[in-house]
């Protein structure tokens, strides 16, 4: 399964980020009662959406944040437990063999233009998004549905002169409308996990008006979610307002604004002076010595992400083919020291390929190879006969410079070989190199899981041909072990846990990627808000937040 959302820090647009921001004046403090919910416009820090606000074409954080408020899909995720709950769907049933899903919609749900939300709105939207002709980012989210290959073709020679052939059809055969409020989905293979996926934004329904005039829709998106779109100023803000006819849990606040005009520093300063109401990432300079905890006293929070930070070896480059070398790098990094000194203790080092808090997962799958041991590292390094300087590369724009530089320093100290952090200017450039398998240096990687289970931390990254196996790692034995785990899961989770743990050990022995630590975010809010909480999707929970 592909990953739903970007590891947000890295997807933030590049900013000059020069500002040392900080305090502002005192700011007026809101006094009050529920009445303020109706009058105060809650302003949320965000980043400019990378694309027009069409759900099927939005997979990055800046846009997702808004899409999630404008649209409600079949299911949604509980803001605390991250469990799937029915939303627009009355029920979603998957046959025991995992090959067919039946969806029954709730009646009475409306789009913001007052048309009803019907089965067609889902079927058409999904067919549209999956169709490669429409070039939607979320297309591959539908690849498990029967008939996907008929609507989705790919370019035979990648970047070459040939174009992708026309899709055979514009409808997936596996997607069938039963009546206005019911449709079925057939999968090519058993795909029970689809039920977990459908809460994502790309599975949102689209109103009939979208198919008539997509351009008009892009200018004024019409969703079926708790908030409706009111206005947008390019490069500055998007405003939304409560949708009174919403059939789900209605938000308490009436108006909200996503503010893209500020980088992290300026955004933080604005929250501190109560000019902005919420920021989901505290600027790195304020994490130093936990400065934000004093500056935003009683109005800050910390949340672990369902994500892991790793260092990936591009195994397609022969330079990195020696496993001893890869292990030596892993053992030269003092994870504990970096999490304490660079991240002020907000992250937890891992000794395996999962993260703390995953059900059934225990740390230590990686064994001694993920433990700091400079002597052993040096031995292995010398045995490997690696020539030349060591380089770690990453986009420099997502707060990665500091820890990568620190890791390089530790590697240099332990191995006695020069190590340099080589920044790549943008996340896009980094991503392009990753996709094209053109990295020539060890590089930073990250993985944000779709659901809290270790399987999702292993299959996509380390199985041969996995969707995010960017380093081109392949080991038959690991593939087999992972497959055993997948099969065992339906029988008994404990059994699967054990098999995955064994797989972790086998992966660690090859060390195709170095697991480092989990990630977390620190967020802050103004004195005008109360009942603030952050969802696992790293969004302010606009449904429950209130104005103080």
């Amino acid at each position, binding site marked *: 399964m592909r990953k739903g959302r970007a590891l947000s820090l890295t*997807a933030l647009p*590049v900013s000059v980020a020069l500002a040392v921001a900080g305090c502002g004046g005192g700011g007026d403090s809101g006094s009050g009662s529920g009445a303020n919910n109706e009058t105060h416009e809650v302003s949320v820090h965000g980043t400019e959406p990378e694309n027009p606000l069409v759900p099927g074409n939005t997979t990055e954080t800046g846009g997702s944040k808004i899409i999630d408020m404008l649209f409600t899909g079949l299911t949604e995720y509980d803001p605390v437990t991250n469990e799937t709950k029915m939303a627009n769907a009355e029920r979603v049933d998957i046959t025991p063999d995992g090959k067919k899903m039946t969806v029954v919609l709730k009646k009475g749900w409306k789009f913001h233009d007052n048309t009803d939300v019907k089965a067609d709105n889902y079927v058409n939207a999904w067919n549209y998004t999956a169709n490669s002709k429409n070039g939607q980012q979320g297309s591959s989210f539908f690849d498990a549905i029967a008939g996907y290959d008929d609507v989705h073709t790919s370019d035979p020679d990648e970047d070459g002169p040939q174009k992708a052939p026309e899709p055979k059809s514009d409808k997936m055969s596996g997607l069938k409308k039963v009546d206005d409020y019911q449709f079925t989905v057939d999968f090519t293979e058993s795909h029970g996990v689809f039920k977990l996926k459908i809460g994502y934004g790309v599975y949102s329904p689209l109103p009939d008006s979208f198919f008539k005039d997509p351009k008009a829709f892009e200018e004024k998106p019409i969703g079926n979610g708790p908030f409706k779109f009111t206005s947008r100023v390019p490069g500055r803000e998007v405003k939304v307002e409560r949708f009174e006819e919403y059939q789900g849990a209605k938000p308490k606040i009436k108006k909200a604004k996503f503010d893209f005009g500020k980088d992290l520093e300026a955004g933080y300063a*604005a929250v501190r002076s109560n000019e902005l109401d919420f920021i989901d990432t505290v600027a790195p300079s304020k994490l130093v010595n936990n400065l934000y905890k004093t500056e935003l006293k009683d109005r800050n929070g910390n949340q672990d992400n369902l994500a892991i930070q790793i260092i990936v070896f591009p195994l397609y480059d022969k330079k990195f083919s020696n496993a001893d070398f890869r292990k030596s790098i892993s053992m030269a990094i003092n994870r504990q020291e970096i999490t304490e000194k660079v991240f002020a203790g907000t992250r937890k080092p891992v000794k395996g390929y999962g993260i703390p808090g995953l059900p059934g997962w225990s740390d230590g799958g990686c064994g001694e190879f993920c433990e700091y041991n400079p002597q052993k590292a040096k031995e292995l390094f010398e045995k490997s006969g690696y020539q030349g300087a060591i380089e770690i590369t990453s986009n420099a724009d997502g707060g990665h410079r500091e820890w990568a530089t620190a890791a390089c320093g530790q590697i240099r100290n332990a191995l006695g070989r020069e190590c340099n952090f080589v920044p790549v200017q943008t996340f896009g450039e980094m991503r392009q190199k990753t996709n094209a398998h053109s990295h020539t240096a060890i590089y930073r990687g990250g993985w944000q899981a779709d659901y809290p289970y270790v399987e999702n931390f292993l299959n996509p990254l380390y199985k041969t041909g996995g969707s995010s196996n960017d380093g081109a790692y392949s080991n038959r034995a690991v593939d087999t072990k992972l497959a055993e785990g997948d099969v065992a899961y339906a029988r008994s989770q404990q059994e699967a846990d054990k098999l995955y743990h064994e797989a972790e050990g086998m992966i660690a022995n090859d060390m195709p990627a170095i697991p480092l630590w989990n990630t977390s975010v620190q967020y802050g809010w103004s004195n005008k808000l109360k009942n603030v909480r952050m969802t696992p999707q790293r969004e302010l929970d606009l449904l429950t937040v209130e104005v103080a």
Partner: protein
Amino acid sequence: MGRYVIRRLLQLIPVFLGTTFLIYVLVWAVPGDPFAGMCGERPCEPGFIAKMNEKFHLDDNIFSQYFQYLGNLVQGDFGETYNGNSVGELIALRYPVSVQLAALAVVIEAIIGVIAGVLTGLRGKGFLDNLVLVSTLFLISLPVFVTGFALQILLGFELEWVDPVVSSDPTLGELLLPAFVLGSLSLAYVARLTRTSLMENKRSDYVRTAVAKGLKPSRVVGVHLMRNSMIPVITFLGTDLGSLMGGAIVTEGIFGIQGIGKMTYDAILQKENITVTGVVVLLVIVFLIVNLLIDLLYAVLDPRIRYE
């Protein structure tokens, strides 16, 4: 005069084309796929990339891209950013902020710089003269970001006299500190230029004649001396307006000002030729026109200069 203006205007065309093409090609040469980073931390859907490449003609060769762009520009269409915003709208939103900032900086330069220059230039050597000389030297030596940082920390964080970061729709008051930072370097130049120019002209024949004629000192200084000494200063201030607008990237970054600087910086990294070139087009036009106006102003201020 008329023919001169026309000739100058005609000369602007190759310079304009050259500069915009240069920028267009350079941004085009920035490495990376502009769309690869738009899908979060996973490979982008190939269909998406193909569609975007087609939409922005990125598969065409660079010349055809440039001339298509130019063709649209001539019709007043600045194009669209990769995330679907109108470049014209973005520029319209941000340009005024940068213009305000640059104009304010020039005003500050003119007022403080000229006063300091006149005071020292007329009085000649002494404590004040040395003070101005040393302090301007010091200002010249400070890179803008150091000045910006220092003042932001001092006035913004320590003394809390001003907001360290301006709001998204800044008032002139908010822009005062950033404008001072932006103009600080030029301020020093203006002061020195005024001083040198005055000292030189003070000894010139026409001033001596004016004094000999028995004119009041105030008239000698105000009319004869100042008018001639101000020519290089005005030249400088004029060209500075243009370069400050393009050079404000650092200042805008430090104070979080939403002008064209930050927008351009982001656009460069995103390989967004359309946005970058759009901004540069405006900057270059301003730059060229201001230069022309200054040359014409010469003729007005100095009767000895005649253009054919």
